[in-house]
């Protein structure tokens, strides 16, 4: 058996990616289930109760990983969109498009869980604090990307316009972050910062990192699944896509198409 030749861009071909992603999706789901189960178990049953916040602090095991993912996924989305635009790589553009809804979901999740945490801790669902406002603007940026991409019918033009929006938005993320911070220091008042949280017990940190890895696995699973759907939709006139759809309909598992 000859040694397998590894080529960097082997899976940039939509047909090959479709097969590979299809093979990886169940593993991603399994990793998500295992990591989330262990992470939630440690977070809710093993980690000690917080001295000042009581039990309500436990929402950070969802909240903080979701907030991290929301920011990371925006940058990843902008990266792939830029690659797709610069090198005319169709798969990169499709991946960027597939990441956007998941990123927006995590942004919304971070805001929603933050509100749940803020009600017992701060006594309010929402404050116009630097972190909250910049996260809300991140949600708007995701919404802008999603709406421009869906408003343009021609996929090539949609991908490029979306890439431009994503890149300009990613430049703006730090600007928003800092400007709102300066704004907030001028308007002093109800600004309870997350930095002021008490030092974290190692069990809390473990649970948080496990949940972060679980969210990574979830993001991979969902993005792969969505990218496969977009690939099929775009390549619906190609022979391999018809065969793949046919194989799925007749109950067979579509393997690696080469």
């Amino acid at each position, binding site marked *: 058996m000859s040694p397998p030749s590894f080529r960097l861009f082997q899976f940039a071909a939509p047909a090959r990616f479709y097969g590979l992603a299809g093979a990886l999706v169940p593993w991603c789901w399994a990793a998500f289930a295992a990591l989330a189960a262990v992470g939630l178990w440690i977070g809710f049953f093993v980690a000690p109760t917080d001295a000042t916040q009581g039990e309500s602090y436990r929402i950070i095991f969802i909240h903080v990983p979701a907030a991290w993912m929301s920011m990371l996924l925006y940058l990843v989305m902008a990266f792939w969109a830029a690659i797709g635009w610069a090198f005319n790589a169709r798969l990169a553009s499709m991946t960027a498009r597939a990441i956007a809804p998941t990123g927006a979901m995590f942004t919304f999740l971070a805001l929603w869980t933050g509100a749940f945490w803020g009600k017992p801790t701060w006594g309010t669902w929402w404050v116009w604090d630097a972190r909250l406002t910049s996260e809300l603007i991140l949600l708007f940026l995701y919404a802008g990307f999603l709406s*421009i991409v869906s*408003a343009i019918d021609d996929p090539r*033009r949609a991908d490029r316009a979306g890439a*431009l*929006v994503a890149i*300009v938005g990613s430049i*703006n993320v730090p600007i*928003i972050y800092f400007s*709102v911070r300066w704004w907030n220091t001028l308007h002093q008042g109800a600004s309870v910062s997350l930095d002021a949280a008490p030092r974290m017990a190692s069990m809390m940190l473990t649970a948080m990192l496990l949940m972060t890895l679980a969210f990574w696995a979830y993001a991979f699973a969902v993005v792969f699944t969505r990218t496969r759907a977009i690939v099929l939709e775009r390549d619906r006139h190609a022979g391999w896509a018809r065969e793949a759809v046919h194989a799925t309909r007749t109950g067979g598992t579509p393997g690696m198409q080469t």
Partner: protein
Amino acid sequence: MSGPFAAVVARDLRLAARRRADALLPVAFFTVAISLFPLGVGPEPQTLRQIAPGVVWVAALLAAMLSVTQLYAGDLADGSLEQMLVAGGPGVLDKLGLVLAKAAAHWLLTGLPLVLVAPLFGLMFDMRPAAIVSLALTLLLGTPVLSLLGGLGAALTLGLRSGAALLILLIVPLCIPALIFGAGAVAAIDAGQSARGHYSLLGAFLIFAALIAPPATAAALRIATE
């Protein structure tokens, strides 16, 4: 000012002069939008004085966004946009120059009138003279940002259904720093502090927008017309 740049600006101004009612719409919108706030919030001078900078700035932002949708639409409809984009050679504007000239024309038609009208609303909202001067100054620094970034939105949404709403969704988040520093400077003056930091940041944001927006707008025009 170079010849072709001035020619593009003068062309837009001449087109606006022939449709005067259209050119006055942004200022009319600005006026109506601001007038709603005392009716909605209540006429207490103390409250009005406090919300005035933010209200004027938000109204200016929306007036700029609503008027900028038509920046390239007319040129696209009659084919002159493609001609200007493909034209080259000496004495002809390149894409960056064209984008800058269009933004400059939009600012002269929309931003400058808002700067001139704003002090009037300062008086109606019972603002102090120093705060009114500061309001006009921040608008002078900030409205070019709105024209530059708005031009980017106009190029991105060129020829799309519901382009106006899409433009607001895309560009308003990018304009937030201008709103924060603009309204913040006036609030600082009102509180007896120095607004110098706000002016500097607003100026820096203007320079940043002038550097980033024209290449991005040129790229968006290429995407939209190819």
